Every structure is written in C-alpha cells, then in structure tokens.
C-alpha cells in the first residue's frame, strides 16, 4: 500500500509499462552491444542507449523547469527559442563569420561558457519580467518564445555555418570512449542538481516561495530574488542543453532546432507528479517524466508511425496518463485505501 501511495509510483509504473511494450514489440529492445560509429570507434549501441542519450536535453531542461514551476507557479515556454539563441551564439563563437572554417575559431569551452551566459541572460530577462513586473510566466516568456529563433539567426549573422567534427564530441562520442557523451553530461547535471538540493536551501526556498510568498517574505526570504534565480538556473540549463544539441550535428538551424520542446519539458514536469501550480516539487519525478517522454517518442518512431502523426499518438497517451493522476480518479483510489485503513483499526481522520 505504501508503494502505491508513493508519489513516484505512477511515473515509474508508466515508464516501466512503456519499456515493457517496447520489449514486446522488439524482444531485443534492451540489448546493448558494442559496435562501431561512423568514425570507426568502438561504441555502445542499442535502443536504450539511444533513449538515454537523446533524452539529455529534455532531462536538463526539466530540472530547470521544475525550479521555475515551483517558485513562480508558472512555466517558461521560451526554452526552445532560447536554445536557438544559445545555438546561434555557440556557432558564431566557434565559426566566426566563416561558413565552414577548417578549424575552430575559439576553444570549445569558451563557446560553452558564452552559450550558458546567453541562456542565463535570457533567463534573467524572463526572471525580471516575472518577479519585478509581476507578469504571468507564460505571458512573460511569450516574448522570447516569439523572438528567440530570429535572434538566434541574427547571432549567426544570417549564415548557416558548420563546425569541424571535433565539436561533435560533446553531442556524440569522445573518440576511444564507448559511452555517448550526452549521457555523461546528463549524469553530471543530475548529480550537481541533487548535490545542490542537499547542500543548499534551494529546494526549501523555492517551495516556500511558491506555496506562500507573503509568509516567506516575513520569514526573511526575498521571493522576488528567488523567483528570479530559478529563471536564471533554467537559463543555465538551456545553455547546457543548447550546447549538447548543437554539438550533435555541429550545426544549428535556429528555425527548426528542437521544435516544440517546451511542451515536452512542461509535460515531463507534470508527468513526474508535480503540480504545474507550483509549490512542492519532486525532482526525481521530473527526471523520470523526461525519460518517459523520450521513450514514448522513440517508441513511436520505431513503430514507423508517420512523423506527422506522432503528436496525435503522444497526445492520446498523455491524456490517459494525466487522467489517471487527476484528483477525481485519485479520490476513487484513495477511498479504497481509506476503507482498508479503517478496517485495520489504525484509521485517523481521513480527508
């Protein structure tokens, strides 16, 4: 009973269910083998590896979005467009004003840092609108959502540059190392996140502000600052995700990069059992949610679902998932729990 009442039960059960279906369709689904990539290096290949690797952007963004949701009671819908800006900045730094430079114009680390800085600047812009000017997050981030992709294109000077292959290590493989680099980056980001949640009061403060900002401010917190910070944190996440994304193919098309990812990210947060109305959050849930969505996407691709029809299938599955987590369904469920609790005699007031 305790397991079923756990908040993570439904997200985990659903992910497991999806994996089972995949195994049913393709018995070799879980198999991981050593193969060779296009460069001839020995690398791990398999469906599972692909999902873990491809989910990187989603996971990183879901982490940032969870903080924003908790503190500001709203969502940032500009993450996809901001990734275009980040991608644009990175390509400009790496390629200068050439379309296909023979070598990188700046060290990759500089590109990463400047990309993150660009992401954080966009986050700060959103954060100021939300915290200082008290604009609803969705409305505030609509601005960059609309303009971001064009800004990204402008950052690249209207060119479509392609960087040399060594930039691709971060989005694919480091030569000689068999695990895809995005997976390593995911692990690092997740580790830093949980460390921050343990070693700082980020979790307590964001939740307190999201639940009751008046009370929080009377307890010495600065709700405006905390909301602002969560947007900057999300901006940093966008920076890292944008870096990974542009490294995958070493080029960026600002108008088509990660289409509709903002909705996938918000869904990931919701699938993880988090209230989109803010307040208490569950980081593990969001991360599981991100992997669930990635699994769903790749499952539909392997099933040869027409690309144009994928969103419809996604939508149907998501409706089911959201419906079973809805309060009305939960209350039917918890009633059963209440009754059984009473009969065991340890019943207290159940509301």
């Amino acid at each position, binding site marked *: 009973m305790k397991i079923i009442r756990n908040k993570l039960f439904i997200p985990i059960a659903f992910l497991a269910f999806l994996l089972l279906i995949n195994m049913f369709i393709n018995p070799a689904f879980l198999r991981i083998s050593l193969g060779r990539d296009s460069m001839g290096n020995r690398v791990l290949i398999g469906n599972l590896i692909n999902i873990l690797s491809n989910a990187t952007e989603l996971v990183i963004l879901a982490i940032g979005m969870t903080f924003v949701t908790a503190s500001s009671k709203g969502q940032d819908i500009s993450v996809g467009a901001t990734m275009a800006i980040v991608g644009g900045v990175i390509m400009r730094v790496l390629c200068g004003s050439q379309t296909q430079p023979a070598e990188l114009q700046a060290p990759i680390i500089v590109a990463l840092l400047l990309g993150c800085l660009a992401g954080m600047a966009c986050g700060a812009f959103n954060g100021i609108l939300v915290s200082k000017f008290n604009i609803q997050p969705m409305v505030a981030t609509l601005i960059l959502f609309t303009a971001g992709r064009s800004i990204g294109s402008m950052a690249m000077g209207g060119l479509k540059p392609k960087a040399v292959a060594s930039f691709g290590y971060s989005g694919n493989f480091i030569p000689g190392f068999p695990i895809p680099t995005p997976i390593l980056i995911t692990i690092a980001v997740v580790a830093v996140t949980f460390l921050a949640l343990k*070693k700082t009061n980020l979790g307590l403060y964001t939740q*307190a502000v999201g639940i009751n900002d008046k*009370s929080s*401010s009377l*307890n010495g917190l600065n709700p405006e600052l905390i909301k602002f910070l969560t947007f900057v944190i999300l901006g940093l996440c966008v920076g890292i995700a944008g870096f990974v994304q542009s490294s995958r193919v070493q080029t960026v098309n600002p108008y088509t990069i990660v289409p509709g990812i903002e909705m996938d990210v918000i869904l990931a947060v919701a699938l993880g059992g988090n209230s989109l109305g803010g307040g208490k959050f569950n980081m593990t849930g969001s991360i599981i949610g991100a992997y669930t969505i990635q699994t769903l996407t790749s499952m539909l691709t392997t099933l040869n679902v027409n690309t144009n029809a994928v969103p419809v299938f996604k939508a149907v599955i998501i409706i089911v998932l959201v419906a079973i987590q809805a309060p009305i369904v939960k209350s039917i469920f918890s009633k059963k729990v209440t009754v059984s609790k009473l009969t065991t005699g340890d019943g207290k007031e*159940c509301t």
Partner: protein
Amino acid sequence: MKGIYKSFPGVRALQNVDFTLCEGEIHALMGENGAGKSTLIKVLTGVYTKDAGEIRIKEINKPVQIKSPQDAQKFGISTVYQEITLCPNLTVAENLFIGRTNDLFVDWKKNNSRAESILGGLGITAKPTQQLSNCSIAVQQMVAIARAIDMDCKVLILDEPTSSLDEQEVTKLFTLMRELKGRGVGIVFVTHFLDQVYALCDKITVLRNGELVGEYQIKDLPRVELVAKMMGKELGDLAEIHNEGQSSADDPKEVIIETEELSSTSGIKPFNFTVHKGEVTGFAGLLGSGRSECVRAIFGADKVTKGKLRIKGEDVSITSPIKAMKKGIGYLPEDRKRDGIIGDLSVRENIILALQVMRGFFRPFTKAEAQAFADEYISLLGIKTASADSPINTLSGGNQQKVILARWLLTHPDYLILDEPTRGIDIGTKVEIQKLVLKLASEGMSITFISSEIEEMMRTCSRLIVMRDLHVVGELKGDDMTQDKIMYTIAGGSNSK
C-alpha cells in the same frame, strides 16, 4: 426542522454526535480546536460524506442524503465561512444572483433593483452595483448571508463569522442575525468568543474530541461551566495568569527597542515606542487602528519612510525582515493563513524555516538536526500532529499557530512580536499561549502582545499603547490598565493627545 442525528463509529473525528436545530433559534456550536465542529458542519453541508448516522429534515419523512454542497443548498442549508467565498471582482448584485439561473440573458436592471430591495430588507448598507472587493469584510459577509437567505435557506451556518470584524461590524452582523431568527431561520453559530455566544444564542451544543458533551439552554450554563465543559477540566488558570501579569509591571530595565517618530508606507503616523528587557507590552485599539502597522514597521515588513529605530541603544536601519531577524526580532503575523504558514510544507520545515533562513542559503540543516528541533518544540508546546512530516495545513488552527510560535522561539529572539496569536484558536491553547508569554518574559525576553480581546491584554501586558486611526493616543500601565480606562482611551474620551 428537527432531529439531525449522525454518528461516526471508528473514526475519531466525530463519534456518535447528535445535533438538533429548531426553527428560529440561534444555536452555538462550541468546542476547542479539533473538537469536530468543522467536521460536523462539513458533514451537514455535504463536503464530507458521513460514515454512519442519519440526518432528518422537517417535512421529509425519511432520512436525507446530503452528498454535496449543492444537495445541501437544495435542502435549504447554507454556509457562510470565515473566508469569503464570493467573487471579489464582481458587483454585489452579481454575487447575489450568480450561478442561480441558467438563463443566457439576464436583465441586470431588474436584478439590481431586486438586489437593492433584498439588501434594504436586511438593512445591509451596500449598493448593488458596487464591486464586492470595495466593500468591507463585514459587508461582504452580509452579502454572502443575503445570498443564502434569498435562496430560501432555512438553516444558516456561520463559521467564525466575527473573527475578522471589529466591534461595530459585529453589532451589525448580530442585528442581521436576530432579524433572520425572527423570520424563522435556524442559525448555527460557530465562534470562539464567549461574549458573543451569551449575547446572541439560545442554545449551546458542546463538542470535545469528536464527542458530544451536551446540549444546553443558554440560561442553564454559566460561562465558567461552559469553558470547563469545553476543556474537560475545571478552570482556575485565568485568575492565576492575571496575578502574575501584575507582578511583572516593574520599573524600567534595559531598553531593547526604541522608536523615534517612526512611520512607514502603511500610513501610520509617526510613533514613539520603547521596549524594556523582559517586559510585555501591548498595542490596543480597534481593527485597522494601526496596531499591526506599528510592529510591521519595526520588523521591516513595511517600508519605513521616516524616523529612527534603535536596538539596544544602537541606531539601525531595518529595510527587510531578514535584517530585523538578525537583530533578534521575531514576528508572528496577524493573519496566520496568509502570512504565517507555508501550507503544503511539513510541520518540521515550517518550524525550522526562520532559523534556516537566518543561517543562510548554503548551510542547510541536516534532516536529523531539523528533526531534533521539530521534536523538541512539538513536545515543548504540545503540538498535536501525526508526525513532523505532516503538512501544516492538515493541523487544526491552534496547532498551526503553535508551529509558527515554535518557528520564532527557535530563533531565540530578544524581542518577540505576537500579533493576534490567539485569534481563532480555542481557549485551552489561548491560556497556554498567555502563560508561555509570561514565562518567556520572566526569562528575559521582551514581548509585544497584540490582541483584540482587551481582557487578554490586561492579563498579559504590563504596559499598553493605545491606538486610534493610525495614531498612538495614549499609554497605560499599572493601575490605569482597567477595562473602562482602555475603552475610554480607544474611544477617544481622553485628551491625551
């Protein structure tokens, strides 16, 4: 209407409780926090479904099933809660009629004039076209009542209607309630104010720990006995506290806080105020007289515009609560729900919050440390909670208040401001809090105690600052602190300013 009966075997919330309400009577439902008053009301109004028992309504021969608030309304049972549940951004008339018709087209002209006659008939001074949020809380409440009456309700439940009203408004509400009583409406009145019960009610039903203590005619149950029945024990505590309170009215000791012509954006007029070590001071005055605004300025909750604040003789500028906290000031706010609790967070997190914020972002307490703090204060203050992990909003009002009190005691302040710490909580907890205040003061903590109940202030405070219309109009101490004198000063009879 006769004979509501329901029982709840097995569950502690309500066990075998009977309740009978007759036509045209005002019936007080009394009990300490967690006694089951709210649960009983919620069963009656269909918010909770009962486990067992039956509800009977006049003219219906078989027991009725009330499954939802809509059902309850159909049976003529309406509730007005402490928190207004109307739509603040609609007009008074819209609030009266909204949701009661399925017609697509509404003749607002007709409705407005109808609203005017309803309001006039009940003696409510509000214009139908006025936006509800522009009305005072009292008027909003009366509009809610008018709505219920107009929907032909026979049973009106008022849950703590007076706790956010000042005396004048309470009088108006009582006039309205008597008017309704005359019309044959049965009124269930839930309150913590004993005076109001005796001023208004015909019968009292007392609950304790989810069980029925008894139903009494008002004339058969003197005040002291009522209190004793609610607490389940004899009461000598109040007198005892009074004596202790007098003894602490000593000569000035070390000055902790001193304000000089302090004023803030809230509009209070510049005030001078001094707090000595180990002294309990109080701000008296009507609701809105500026009591809270004074202490909020000291705590940095409102922006200070002019004047000086000295802490232990040192000039300080407090621009935010965190600065005040670091200088050793704690502030328990007036509105527990809005400014005090962090609803979904656990009791433990609510207790450690202030100290944690003072300690800093990068130095979180470990779970074991936090748990130790929580356990210490849960047992020290006798907080009734399933565990330190329970969300605070599952606790009863009095226990929530104790959690907030624990939060500030944990920071070990030199100066603790308690703004209405006893509002909306039961007598037992009130007494506990008053005792605690005096104990803390005797240990050297300076405390400012604000309350709407003058008796309570007289018991705990050794000095009273009296406020009227955002001005400090007087200061009373020692033998001057009599109820008459305080009233006189509040009402503006004395020419002290």
